[in-house]
């Protein structure tokens, strides 16, 4: 099917996009089935759900000890944890797959065929996204099973959060592809990806830690770590807008507070982030050429 397509030979713009879409679908189909037939995604999903189960178990223990617990949405934290773990895995897989194809020369061979930079990136992007849609369905089943099992209150908000998480995962996958295009070699792309993710996590943890330290000692205008805390809050406010996870966290809060406009705003920001990384990945690939 792919062999009959020649993107460069078609002058019509509509036809060009159609061929590009078909080429992207071909790459997506091949990559999706490769991930679905591998062991990694099942293992990662199981780890993510077991981690989510630990969070829920913690809640059960609290109720056992204190007899009562008032909470708005006990599944939100486990679900965001699952989204974090699975999205990082999918983004890494996307980065490795794209970087390896460049490194091994497969990408160069593909460019002789009907595939261009856009179709290549779109194919890998869609492949991971399709896998996440499958994962999302499994998690939906899991959340309903857990709701029934533990006698939690059913909430439509859980389904909405899962739906919103597709945008988050899409943005993270696009980020992975951007890193692959930027880093060039597989190992370098992996290092870049890990360092940036760790930096974001460190900023978040550092902010939480310093905030809790300050709270322990009457934080005031003359707080001894006032400057550090303010600097971290400032950086974190930026990170909260830059990070797709920060956006998902805000969407979760807005869901609880019923703030539909804010949900749309943060969804829009997340999609814009994804689009920016996606376009940037294509642009870098075009600039660097087949051999990087």
């Amino acid at each position, binding site marked *: 099917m792919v062999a009959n397509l020649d993107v460069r030979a078609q002058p019509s713009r509509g036809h060009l996009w159609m061929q590009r879409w078909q080429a992207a679908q071909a790459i997506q189909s091949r990559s999706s089935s490769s991930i679905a037939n591998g062991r990694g995604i*099942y293992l990662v999903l199981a780890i993510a759900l077991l981690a989510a189960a630990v969070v829920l178990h913690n809640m059960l223990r609290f109720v056992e000890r204190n007899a*009562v617990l008032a909470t708005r949405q006990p599944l939100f934290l486990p679900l965001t944890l699952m989204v974090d773990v699975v999205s990082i895995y999918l983004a890494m897989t996307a980065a490795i797959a794209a970087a390896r194809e460049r490194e091994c020369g497969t990408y160069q061979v593909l460019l002789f065929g009907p595939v261009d930079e856009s179709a290549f990136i779109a194919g890998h992007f869609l492949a991971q996204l399709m896998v996440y849609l499958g994962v999302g369905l*499994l998690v939906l089943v899991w959340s309903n099973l857990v709701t029934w099992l533990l006698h939690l209150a059913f909430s439509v908000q859980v389904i909405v959060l899962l739906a919103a998480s597709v945008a988050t995962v899409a943005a993270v996958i696009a980020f992975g592809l951007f890193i692959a295009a930027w880093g060039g070699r597989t190992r370098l792309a992996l290092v870049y990806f890990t360092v940036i993710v760790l930096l974001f996590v460190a900023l978040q943890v550092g902010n939480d830690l310093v905030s809790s330290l300050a709270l322990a000692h009457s934080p005031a205008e003359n707080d001894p770590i006032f400057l550090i805390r303010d600097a971290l809050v400032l950086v974190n406010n930026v990170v909260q807008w830059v990070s797709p996870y920060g956006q998902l966290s805000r969407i979760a809060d807005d869901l609880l507070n019923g703030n539909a406009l804010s949900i749309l705003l943060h969804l829009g920001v997340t999609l814009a982030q994804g689009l920016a990384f996606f376009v940037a990945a294509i642009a870098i690939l075009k600039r660097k050429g087949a051999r990087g």
Partner: protein
Amino acid sequence: MMHSTSAKQKCVRAVLLTAIAIAMSASSRASAQGPERILAFVYGVTNYNGSVYASALVPPSVGTIYLLANKDNVIAPRQTQIYFWPITNQFLADWEKMNELVVGQLEVVQQGRLINTMALSQYVIQYDVNDPMGTLGLFTGERAKAKHEVWQKAQDQYRASLAGYSEMLRMWDEQINKLRAESSTGTVPPEKLPKRPEAPPRPTLLSTNPAQGFVISLAAGTYDIQVKRLDGSIQPNSHKRLIVFEPEREGIAYSAVPQQRWTVPEQADEPDGVVYALPGTTLYLQAFRSKRFNAHDYVHMLDPQDQSVWSDRGKWVSFEPATQPPMQVDDGNGSVSARASQPYFVRQLPGGGLGYEVVPFDPNTMEQPTFAGYTLDLNADADYAVSLTGVNGVPIPGSQRRVRTLRTDRTLWLYVVSAMPLALGLVVFFARRRRARAIKIEE
């Protein structure tokens, strides 16, 4: 020679020790001097926090004052001595050393336009201890004077009654002694005992002393304020940003008290929150009228020097208990019942266990109830929808909650279900291997 050297050494040692002792005593005297005082212009703010009045200090380092909208609040401009108190990381005022009112007018500016110029006015705050929230009032001008006079009169009357009571008590004591002296046995039979005088009731009205300040009540918004002195100049450091805010929402907060652990109640503030409990638990729900504020604004109103709260968070604040409205309980099976709030008494159990027992309040044997709440007995699969009923039988907005039991005995199944993707992965793996073998056979 040796002896002389030793004597010299002893002498030197003694001088050194004396010098060290003087130095140490000097340093200890220095540390006992306390923090350095600085003369400063401050605002003393008396803010209404939704139920009572509280006071806060606004030192020069704080640029913004936060107040509740459409409520009387007081901003008093003062010269005082402030000092940094490292234990709480705050500037405090030494009111005893200096507390001078800065006479002038308060200019209130909004979007660059002067919208109000206020003069200082006298004010008092009063309330009755039997119903603090219902009787709380801030009175200004002549009314403040009259209210304070009423309070003063009640205090004078009480003091006079107390003096009379003391005299009557002394006379009663003398009468007893006289009767005892007349009795052959030295005791007085109960029927001959004179009636003991009764103490006068203590006045229940409490009042502040009259003070002066700018009594301010503004609509929600952002303003700028500054003090214009009598000579027309602006008081240095008096310019502040004034943020006046309203509650974001109102509702009913519940404090869920399990019978077996009444010392650790769980706060259920959010109307969409769910109260989870163990099956078989007897739960008491204490209801309070509550309001949700922007956490940053509310905390900064109470403590202008606080820097800890972020502006995108809400904070529910509970006020007076709501014990009057009946609670409607829907058990999820079509049965709806109404319950009244009941008073309960918490009794400490005797013995080393240091346990507690919650029992219905009996006015004949108990002094006063410990708490009042709506009782819910939770069976294994309880799923209650509760709400407080207002006038005309309509649920009070924000009073709805769900109360459910949690199946804590299914932890193992939780992990089994979570490991489900592993099983799916195995199925995919074996299916793929089977397909691969089939291809080999065909070849």
